[in-house]
């Protein structure tokens, strides 16, 4: 079960033609796929398109009604290879994943696909994880489009534009026999907006027809001599066809309300930011009426030379908005202008920035310097937006200086009650005995270990590659094995072979921890092979330990409750000191709390209402025994374990406290024990609708305890002032 349910929202996919659809980008894309008569869809989750996968999963019933097959692919490569169904048959297929990391994984299949070309439309929807909020290396998907000659769409961030691009993307793909990449930017995926719907279409040609009448064409298979033919085809047939289509359909837009001898070229995805910049400088209005001509590249590869020449014809200068680096488009346009002997000078990275996101600040400043160069009279210098003023101007929006010492970074971290936290608490405790080890980390929630308070993990080489990242550290003369981490998501994605199999084969002595929280949790709680839950449309419950033993691991241990910190600590020590050759694999199992509470909380509330006995637990700290050294926090980092002002009249330092958001996961108690912290921690159990026995016990105990307590208070009499009764 995924973290966020779209069960209700997906009903919008049934909205009949001609109505206004309100919703998020991911839903709009799904609707557009249905409107295009897609036959099959696959993909791999990962921000920013995780929720697109969730929407598709939750829409399975609607998809099935329309005869659409949907798969949660095992990896991006799997998804890309799935598009093979469009090679020989007029079947429309779409896949989606996070880019560039997913595209990296998929690129082998994509290159093969692009070489032979397609018959049915093939659409690759990439969630471009670039700029603020991104969780990966900052690269561009653009390079993949260029190297394999696939066409790249970068529509304006507006639901109508995005929906249109899905539809013409398929047509373009079919017209030019080439897979098409649709780049959805980070903020477009969850963009809320509206568009006018069309009718959902059943695919005209069915998979059944294809399966029952198999076709093949050896010239579509990537093997010499066809592979040489493919390269010629790409250049001589498919590219010209694509250019023709893009020109005929006017996919790129020329907006020129004003006639000026300079102009702006922008990637479609940056259009809204550029228009806002123009508006702030008084050069455009909110409807996009601009004094300066704008050429919008809704297709960023290939660049249409004719269109560029036409746009540049009577202009002295052009400003190109192309986010990220290298500046592929800038080079491309420069080459076009040079070959056409055009006189227009091309600006871009020189007045903007070479590296980094094109934020409104960057864009507006760039626009200003460009216009100042070519038409300074257009700028009202005494009415400029604050952001373009010199940084020391009192009108500058950052004139009030708050320092990073006052406003701390707040990176994401393990949730309250996260079962992965105790794994790292246990490791920290184990390392007190075994000394520090080199740790190769992986991608997933467990990567939060690299941040305070744990500070564990030295490198991360990619999804599922934690174990592979430790492969270089092998030295028989060292008795300190390296430690590798891997999540269950990465494990099934590729880690079983790239990591575990590799370690067995190469006789690595590494200790590998596979964090098994029953979901692909970092990407939003999707089910995977080892998920503990029953999933009506997927096969689950395939244990990780069985898989690693299957590829030859001898030392494997599953810890079924990561909250047993002392057990886990001892397992770590065992594995790290074991003399047995070969990799040692610890499967650390506990369900992701975020998902568990989401499932269990409503049930508990219901049971309580129905008068059933329900036990609720939380932890606490005695303010009088806490001395405020915060060592508990340094081995936990739970958001619910915090600090508070010291109520003790003599002490100044804040004490530790458990906030009411504590879910009673138990780590506080386990740590207090395993790390011999302090006697301040206690667990409170609140029993609703107690049984008769509960009540009997309590009555007896209360009577006994209150008697002793009265005696205690007697002995303390005379210290505090007596309360004077009125």
């Amino acid at each position, binding site marked *: 079960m995924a*973290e966020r349910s779209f069960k209700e929202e997906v009903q919008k996919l049934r909205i009949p033609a001609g109505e206004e659809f309100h919703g998020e980008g991911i839903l709009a894309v799904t609707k557009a796929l249905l409107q295009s008569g897609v036959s099959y869809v696959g993909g791999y989750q990962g921000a920013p398109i995780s929720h697109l996968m969730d929407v598709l999963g939750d829409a399975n019933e609607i998809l099935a009604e329309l005869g659409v097959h949907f798969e949660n692919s095992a990896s991006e490569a799997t998804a890309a290879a799935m598009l093979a169904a469009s090679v020989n048959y007029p079947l429309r297929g779409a896949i989606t994943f996070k880019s560039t990391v997913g595209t990296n994984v998929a690129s082998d299949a994509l290159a093969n696909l692009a070489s032979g070309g397609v018959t049915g439309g093939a659409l690759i929807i990439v969630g471009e994880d670039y700029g603020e909020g991104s969780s990966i290396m900052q690269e561009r998907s653009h390079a993949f489009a260029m190297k394999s000659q696939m066409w790249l769409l970068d529509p304006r961030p507006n639901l109508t534009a995005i929906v249109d691009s899905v539809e013409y993307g398929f047509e373009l793909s079919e017209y030019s026999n080439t897979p098409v990449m649709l780049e959805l930017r980070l903020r477009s995926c969850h963009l809320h907006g509206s568009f006018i719907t069309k009718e959902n279409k059943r695919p005209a040609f069915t998979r059944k027809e294809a399966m029952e009448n198999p076709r093949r064409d050896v010239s579509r298979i990537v093997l010499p001599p066809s592979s040489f033919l493919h390269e010629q085809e790409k250049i001589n047939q498919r590219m010209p066809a694509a250019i023709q289509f893009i020109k005929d359909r006017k996919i790129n837009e020329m907006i020129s309300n004003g006639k000026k001898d300079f102009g702006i070229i922008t990637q479609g995805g940056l259009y809204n930011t550029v228009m806002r910049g123009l508006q702030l400088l008084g050069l455009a209005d909110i409807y996009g009426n601009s004094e300066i001509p704008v050429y919008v590249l809704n297709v960023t590869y290939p660049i249409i030379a004719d269109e560029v020449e036409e746009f540049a014809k009577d202009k002295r200068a052009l400003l190109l908005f192309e986010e990220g680096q290298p500046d592929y488009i800038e080079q491309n346009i420069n080459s076009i202008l040079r070959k056409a002997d055009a006189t227009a000078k091309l600006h871009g990275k020189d007045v903007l920035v070479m590296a980094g996101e094109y934020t409104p600040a960057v864009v507006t400043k760039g626009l200003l310097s460009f216009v100042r160069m070519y038409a300074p009279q257009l700028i009202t210098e005494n009415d400029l937006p604050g952001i373009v003023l010199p940084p020391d101007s009192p009108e500058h929006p950052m004139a009030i200086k708050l320092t990073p010492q*006052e*406003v701390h970074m707040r990176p994401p971290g393990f949730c309250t009650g996260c079962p992965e936290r105790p794994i790292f608490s246990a490791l920290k405790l184990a390392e007190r005995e075994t000394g520090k080890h080199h740790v190769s980390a992986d991608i997933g929630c467990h990567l939060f270990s690299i941040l305070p308070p744990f500070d564990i993990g030295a490198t991360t080489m990619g999804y599922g590659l934690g174990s592979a990242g430790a492969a270089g550290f092998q030295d028989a003369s060292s008795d300190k094995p390296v430690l590798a981490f891997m999540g269950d998501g990465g494990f099934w994605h590729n880690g079983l072979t790239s990591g575990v199999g590799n370690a067995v084969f190469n006789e690595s002595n590494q200790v590998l921890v596979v964090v098994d929280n029953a979901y692909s949790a970092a990407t939003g709680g999707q089910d995977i092979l080892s998920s503990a839950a029953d999933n009506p449309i997927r096969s689950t419950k395939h244990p990780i330990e069985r898989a690693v033993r299957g590829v030859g691991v001898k030392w494997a241990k599953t810890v079924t409750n990561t909250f047993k910190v002392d057990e886990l600590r001892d397992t770590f020590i065992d594995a790290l000191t074991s003399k047995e050759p070969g990799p040692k694999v610890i499967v650390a199992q506990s369900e992701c709390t975020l998902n568990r509470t989401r499932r269990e909380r409503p049930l508990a509330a219901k049971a309580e209402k129905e008068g059933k006995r329900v036990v609720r637990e939380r932890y606490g700290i005695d303010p009088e025994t806490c001395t405020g050294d915060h060592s508990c926090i340094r081995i936990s980092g739970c958001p619910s374990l915090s600090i508070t002002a010291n109520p003790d009249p003599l002490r100044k330092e804040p004490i530790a406290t458990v906030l009411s958001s504590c879910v009673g996961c138990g780590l506080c108690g386990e740590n207090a024990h395993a790390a011999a912290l302090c*006697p301040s921690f206690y667990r409170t*159990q609140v029993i609703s609708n107690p049984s008769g026995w509960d009540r009997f016990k309590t009555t007896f105990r209360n009577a006994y305890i209150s008697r002793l307590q009265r005696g205690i208070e007697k002995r303390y009499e005379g210290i505090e*002032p*007596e309360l004077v009764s009125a």
Partner: protein
Amino acid sequence: MSQPTQERAITMAILAMGGEGGGVLADWMVSLGEHSGYWAQTTSVPGVAQRTGATIYYVELFPRTPGGAEPILSTMPTPGEVDIVLASELMEAGRSVLRGLVTPKNTTLITSTHRVYSMMEKTSLGDGRVDSDSIIENCMKAAAKFVGGDFSKIAEESGSVISSVLFGALAGTGRLPFSRQEFEGAIERSGVGVAPSLKAFARGFDYAEKILKPAPAGVPIQIGIKPVSVEETKAVTDAAISADPVAAVGARLKKLAAHIRDTYPASVRATLVHGIKRTTEYQDVEYANEFLARIASVYELDLVHGDGSFRLTQETARYTALWMTYEDTIRVAAIKVRARRFDRIHKEARAKNEQVVGIMEFLHPQVQEVADTLPTALGKWVLGSKPVNALINRISGDGIKVNTTSAFGYTTLYILSRLRPIRRRSLRFNEEQLLIDAWLTTVMDVATTNYALACEVAETQSLVKGYGETHANGLANFNLIMAELPRTLASADPVARIRQLREAALAEESGARLRALL
């Protein structure tokens, strides 16, 4: 071409932490806008937003005209061009200022002023909290209008979440061209937790309306926008105690309190009163006498060498009282069995009358701690005896859980708490008294030559705290700094030097940073 229109969108940013309902707030805004005839666009940075990190949501609204063109709305806020900023917590409000989203030109900043501490603040060995006042001051300077209040408290009181209060406060500012009913409609349409949300909304609404009313001339604006801090409350109590120390104590301590009143200046009386109460509770009145005797000699020196602030007496009294009531098993047990603790825990668990509450302690008595409480000779024997060591380790090596709400568990702790009379003869008691006296002697020695440094030496005792390993590390660090004193005294700026050493000790538990400095 036609002259471009001057209309601009309404721009709003929401700063929240993952899981705090920033998304819900953005959804309400969209629903509000769309139902009131506006184009609405919202964007957020998805992905890890669920997971406690700082998140920004951005909303733009623009009026629809029948048949009119669709506006081009931005997906990202432009610094200096945001009309309304909502922050769920004070440091997040600070972040909005840091990022230039708030300007005196046009921004209404609505924020809760409570704190959710950052990891950096929480993990400090001492007090790592940033100064809330400074953030508030900067927020007020940066915003055209500032609406700040402890919305977390309001939310809790209304059984709802902060986003409802913020939404109410937004309505209350009157900055948006929508009626209160239209705002409430958005909450009602969302369909979840409507009643409590509306209650919290109403309180947020009233709060903002009240705070934005122009204050009568001369009245300082916006009192109470920040939660009253414990420190402020303490200061008020202390002022009352020093005015009348005798009233602040019970019958057994009246004499000592009168002595404090007659002998000591007002500035140190409260600390001394806390000291005698603490030592009496810990041991007996006799022990409180010993405490006062220790301070008396410091005070005499202070009169001669001091600057009239009596800081030395004050700080020495504070740390002497704390050290004399060091955390041993008896003290811990005595605290755990008291009635007031049971009351507090019931309240904290929000247990209703018909519910049953159980309390489980996580104790980890180590050999050292057991020996500490035993009479000196016995304690030494326990420490030296291998079989006894092994036995104790077997019982509590992995920690023991005690159910304080059961008769057996309670009795165990009760008996421990009643060992108070044997404390004076225990191994640790004697060791601690020697350490205290040695430290006091040093303080007084230094006071004759360098008063300011003596105060710092007194404060250095704050390093000795915690239990088990933390305590051992703290004590080791303390000893290192004490051993360094002769050289510190000879340095160019002894006060700065000892402070530097203390900070190094606090920066890193094991003392590596400190040793590097020595």
